[in-house]
């Protein structure tokens, strides 16, 4: 039970006044970010990341910085539910499935019950995922200590193949957007040979494309443009949460333990294998609809229909940190931004982190417990306050968000070129979203590009250019084969169906 001991050490780190204060600030900021259109987990964290540069320089500062940023992430996960239920506007993509039953509940005058169910099940999902992170990540990290460059490259391959195979959209679009991310990551000075790549004589391109700028532009500006296009008018149920409603709903919730358990499992799985919170929430809603005795009534305002997606989304969002910490492979765009943060602060994500910086890792894990408890209390008590933010007219909120994005982009490198770049990425994000080019693989590739290339090059050096090194031993071979299976999963599953003769009975 070494984990328990380490965790207690982590609580000792996280329970300082300064860290607790950051935790509260992070959660509150996160909920606000989650509620506002155009600001979400990924770009909220990206905008605030530069402000932690100085904080992370102090001793123990990196832990405080990650606590602040991860709590923003938890807050954003909570916040998405508020707008879905009260205004039928999903503040975050992973809360889209929450609108299906959450908004009808609100219309029926049971907004309080829906909110309580959403927050509580978010908390349950997160708790299951944090327990998983606590006990599984040391095991994975210890295992991964044996990894060499070929193994790491095959893990990256697995991540990216999972994106292609698991995504609902067109696979070629996923590949195109992912490869664009890799190409943009390669721009600038090549770290090994010192040659300039794809700069074409522009001095601004020497330092390459920073993923933070891309995230702020693609997710922030792009999202604002999409919101504006739909024309903004917030009409929503008034939010009041009194203790009676909360307690009544809590009495009702244990009925849905099966749904909770299933949704947590779905969420954890989708978070670790990079699928992300959004598909997890849809999948879990679909499963609950199929398996619940009240499945027919889903969509008309069932509490169970809120429990399922919220549990899964929060479980996926939280467990996405497991591969990030242990392997250096983020499971979601927000986790990718956090990973980028670690690298900027001078920490090397990966298995060695558990050996070299136990304070950091366990402080973060302990803060995940505390942050989610604090988050639950804050959102349950402050819903009316957060809902009031959405009543601020759009003509004020939109320019303020744009100004915040611009400041965020500037502070990354103190460069105006980055602010222009942010606008370009914004237009790009808008067009990509409209044409169903997924943005998450682009961001992940941009963050991981250099690391993936390094491990590829080192592997190639080891084998003198033979690709067979990725099948050289049972460990790397298994991961590579798994990656290929995931890549061709849509084709394979269709093949399996064909073999079973299912296509004859039900053609789509």
């Amino acid at each position, binding site marked *: 039970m070494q984990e328990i001991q380490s965790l207690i050490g982590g609580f000792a780190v996280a329970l300082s006044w300064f860290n607790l204060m950051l935790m509260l600030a992070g959660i509150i900021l996160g909920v606000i970010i989650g509620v506002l259109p155009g600001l979400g987990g990924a770009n909220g964290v990206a905008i605030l990341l*530069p*402000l932690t540069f*100085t904080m992370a320089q102090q001793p123990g500062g990196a832990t405080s910085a990650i606590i602040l940023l991860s709590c923003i992430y938890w807050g954003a996960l909570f916040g998405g539910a508020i707008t879905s239920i009260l205004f039928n506007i999903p503040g975050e993509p992973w809360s889209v499935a929450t609108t299906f039953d959450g908004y009808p509940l609100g219309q029926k005058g049971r907004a309080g019950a829906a909110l309580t169910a959403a927050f509580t099940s978010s908390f349950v999902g997160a708790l299951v995922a944090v327990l998983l992170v606590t006990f599984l990540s040391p095991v994975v990290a210890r295992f991964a200590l044996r990894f060499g460059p070929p193994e790491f490259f095959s893990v990256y391959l697995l991540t990216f193949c999972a994106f292609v195979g698991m995504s609902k959209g*067109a696979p*070629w*679009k996923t*590949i*195109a957007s992912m*490869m*664009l991310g*890799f*190409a943009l990551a*390669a721009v600038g000075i*090549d770290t*090994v*040979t010192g*040659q300039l*790549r*794809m700069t*074409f004589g522009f001095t601004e391109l020497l330092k390459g494309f920073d993923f933070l700028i891309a995230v702020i532009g693609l997710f922030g*500006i792009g999202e*604002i*443009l999409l919101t*504006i*296009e739909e*024309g903004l008018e917030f009409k929503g149920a008034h939010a009041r949460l009194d203790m009676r409603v909360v307690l009544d709903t809590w009495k009702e919730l244990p009925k849905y333990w099966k749904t909770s358990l299933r949704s947590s499992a779905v969420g954890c799985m989708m978070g670790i294998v990079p699928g992300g919170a959004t598909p997890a929430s849809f999948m879990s809603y679909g499963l609950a609809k199929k398996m619940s005795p009240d499945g027919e009534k889903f969509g008309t305002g069932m509490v169970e229909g809120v429990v399922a997606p919220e549990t899964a989304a929060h479980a996926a969002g939280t467990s996405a940190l497991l591969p990030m910490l242990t392997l250096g492979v983020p499971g979601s765009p927000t986790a990718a931004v956090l990973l980028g943060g670690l690298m900027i602060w001078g920490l090397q994500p990966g298995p060695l982190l558990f050996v070299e910086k136990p304070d950091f890792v366990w402080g973060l894990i302990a803060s995940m417990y505390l942050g989610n408890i604090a988050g639950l209390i804050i959102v349950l008590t402050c819903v009316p306050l957060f809902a009031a933010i959405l009543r601020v*007219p*759009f*003509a*004020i909120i*939109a*320019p*303020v968000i*744009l*100004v915040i994005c*611009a*400041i965020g982009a*500037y*502070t990354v490198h*103190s460069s*105006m070129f980055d*602010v*222009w770049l942010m*606008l370009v990425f*914004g*237009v790009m994000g*808008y*067009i990509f979203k*409209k*044409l169903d*080019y997924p943005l998450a693989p682009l961001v992940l590739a941009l963050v991981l590009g250099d690391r993936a*290339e390094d491990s*590829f*090059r080192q592997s*190639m*050096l080891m084998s003198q*250019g033979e690709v067979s090194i990725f099948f050289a031993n049972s460990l790397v071979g298994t991961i590579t084969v798994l990656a290929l299976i995931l890549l061709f999963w849509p084709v394979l599953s269709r093949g399996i169906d064909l073999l079973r003769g299912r296509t004859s009975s039900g053609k789509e």
Partner: protein
Amino acid sequence: MDAQNQERAVGSVRAWEIAVGAIFLAFGALVVWDSQRLGAKWASDGPQAGYFPFYIGCFIMIASAANLIQVLMSGAALRKAFVEWGQLRMILVVMVPSAIYVFLIANPWLSLGIYVASAIFIAFFMRYLAKYSWPKIMAVSLGTMLAFFVMFEIWFSTPLPKGPLETLLGFN
């Protein structure tokens, strides 16, 4: 109503798909070309600088070609409007002032700095989109900027671009 919408559409989804696919294809070709220039082969000391990007460029070209073929083969489903004129107008109402805003922050002629430019930017939106009264506009835009100034320059000591007004007030 439908016919009217069709008329006001700015390009079909199909046209935009083709345009974006073509840009991807060109970009992939550019990556491949640049990697070739650097050398995408095997040197005496290991892979050259263009080794990895070369394959990335190839993948971009293959993927965009596949996308283009899919679009060209598809039928009427993609003929729907990409964006309607009214929507595009709203987007331009945001993007054009945003570009002017970024230009005002810093340019070779008259850089206003981020605080003054932001105040003007917020004021413009409030006036243009919602016709607020000037006292309200002043309160919101100046108040926000004052809050940001205190936050960034004093709390986080992260200097942002400043202009003549800040110099006049003695901040640098």
